[in-house]
């Protein structure tokens, strides 16, 4: 049973991560290809703080805050850039953060990673902790879902969509688009930080290789597959992708062919991204349908 708990926990963490990117990419139209950086900042900050004795809830809150601040740090200089330049800037930002994780060995222990990341006492570490952990992660995912839904349905959320459709119109309507976009990135980064915090304390071991471009592509896939700019899309996307990845484990593949599995899986992911853009850019559930669910 705890294998199932494990998959559910991972899927929920990814759904938080995907939702946070969706706020930027789906709702605001910001092509953030470096979102993994904030996931990593959240994970590292919370892990390092709690390892040095800060109580875990405090460490987690600080980590989420730091991820948000890092978001602002990225947003302020780069938001003036047009779409694809912003994409490149964020991608490069994530690579730089990755290099820092890897090489600032005095702080992050570099490639050795951080083992023995603590968990709160009331959760504990044994097998019995899994249902509790699942409950915590589920709670976090639900809070994320509800908060993001409130945010995106608020006047602020509507401004985001106006910016996505036409930034000039938004400016003409007297909106401070720069401020609004900055807020979107800070919020998105903070939630990505939350996902990272959960990840660090669940896995209890993190290393720089957990935070690479590969993960960004995975989470991008979750959103695109599920339906960007919808509330359920990233959640459905995350569950589909994580369950698909675990499902592959159960296909009996002769050992001489196992080396083909990962590349094939990667090719399928890439292919899905391309096909979705060509045939169904709105994703499995389209935005208008997502809207209906919202009103129901």
């Amino acid at each position, binding site marked *: *049973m*705890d*294998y*199932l708990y*494990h*998959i559910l926990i*991972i899927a929920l963490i990814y759904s938080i991560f995907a939702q946070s990117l969706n706020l930027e990419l789906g709702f605001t139209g910001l092509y953030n290809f470096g979102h993994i950086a904030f996931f990593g900042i959240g994970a590292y900050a919370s892990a390092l703080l709690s390892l040095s004795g800060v109580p875990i809830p405090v460490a987690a809150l600080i980590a989420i805050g730091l991820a948000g601040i890092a978001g602002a740090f990225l947003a302020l200089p780069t938001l003036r850039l047009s779409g694809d330049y912003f994409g490149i800037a964020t991608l490069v930002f994530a690579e730089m953060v990755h290099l820092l994780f*890897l*090489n600032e*060995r005095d702080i992050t222990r*570099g*490639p*050795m*990673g951080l*083992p*023995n990341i603590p968990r709160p006492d009331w959760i504990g*570490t*044994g*097998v019995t*902790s899994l249902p509790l952990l699942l409950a915590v992660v589920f709670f976090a995912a639900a809070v994320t879902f509800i908060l993001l839904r409130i945010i995106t349905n608020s006047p602020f959320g509507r401004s985001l969509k106006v910016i996505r459709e036409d930034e000039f119109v938004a400016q003409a309507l007297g909106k401070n688009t720069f401020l609004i976009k900055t807020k979107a990135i800070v919020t998105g980064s903070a939630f990505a930080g939350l996902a990272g915090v959960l990840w660090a304390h669940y*896995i*209890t*071991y*993190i*290393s720089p*290789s*957990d935070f690479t471009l590969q993960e960004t592509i995975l989470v991008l896939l979750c959103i695109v597959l599920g339906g960007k700019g919808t509330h*359920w899309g990233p959640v*459905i996307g995350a*569950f*589909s992708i994580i*369950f698909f990845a*675990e*499902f592959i*484990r*159960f*296909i*009996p593949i002769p*050992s001489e062919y*196992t*080396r083909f*599995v*990962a*590349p094939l899986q990667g090719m399928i992911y890439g292919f899905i991204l391309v096909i979705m853009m060509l045939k169904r850019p709105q994703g499995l559930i389209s935005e208008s349908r997502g809207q209906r669910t919202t009103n129901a």
Partner: protein
Amino acid sequence: MKKFVFSTIAILFLISAGRVTAGDISVGSVTPLTGKLAVYGEGFQQAMLLAADEINAAGGIKGNSFKIVFEDNNSTSKGSVSAIRKLITIDKLPLIFGPASSSNFLAVCPIAEDNKIVLLAAESAAASISKCGSYVFRVFPSDLLQGVGVAELTKSLGYKEVVLTYVNNDWGVGLAEVFKTEFTAAGGKIIDELPHAEGKTDYRSEILRMKSQHPKAIVNLTYIKEGATILKQAYEMGLKVQWLMGSASKSAKLIDLAGKASEGVIGTYPTFSQETPQYKSFKAAWEKKYPGKKTPVFGEYNYDMVKLTALALESASSNSSDDIREALLKVSKGYIGTTGDKSFDENGDVNASYGQWTIKDGKISDYK
């Protein structure tokens, strides 16, 4: 949405049922079959399968056939965690062979410890693994020993000042730390120290920086690919020094890749005599099962690990992990495998003696 989740779960369990047949005694293995370590993973798997075949040919365990359930970990810590959770929950295995690469191994350690599952390592060298817990064992000596070995080799060759370079990952950094402490404590001096990134194709800048220090010897703690690339490019750039390397680059593949640039390299490795009957029989069995294939890196350790496990399973009073753990400690005492004495100490570590290797005329030989 709900439907989707449930049907997926249902499929998962349907497929998983029946993988472990009754009458088998099974253990699990988290192995890098895909991802960046897949090059090594395949060899590990072959060595383990070789041992399993021999065990079954000799009548299995308590009359049951012995089986290893392999799970791929994608060479990542996330994959390792998923894989071990699956092996523990779905296959309900009391003993699992842990993943290669210390970082992946460290990610699964707490899970094994929490679930009281016996976890064995055949190639993870990080010193911190010793502190993993009472259910964790390894048949491979800790870095601590190897770092000391390289430092001793350097001193014995009379080099007082060296440039130190190492692959920038958990293994390389760990080893370099030990080397540094040992070497400087013995009065040696490290003129320059630079890590090199894993898996790059161009190390010229790094080499130039080493060259600018005009060292007589360079300690290069790295893998095969990285090692070969560095040796090759250093050769092209006319850097002539004594290269001192660790055990991870001791491979015929290094010579394949680097050619004559690898000539004269000296390194250490946890030694075991290739003259023992155990090693000879392993070698013969390997050549019979995989004709034409060279024995893989750490293959002997994987082989020993499985053999030792079988002994423990045979003598354990039940199939519970606690009993297996007890039995493992007991049978290891004085057990001599292909890689020598595998007696576990209180940390689950083994001792080792270090030998020295060199490359001469395109062949690996012992350095004397």
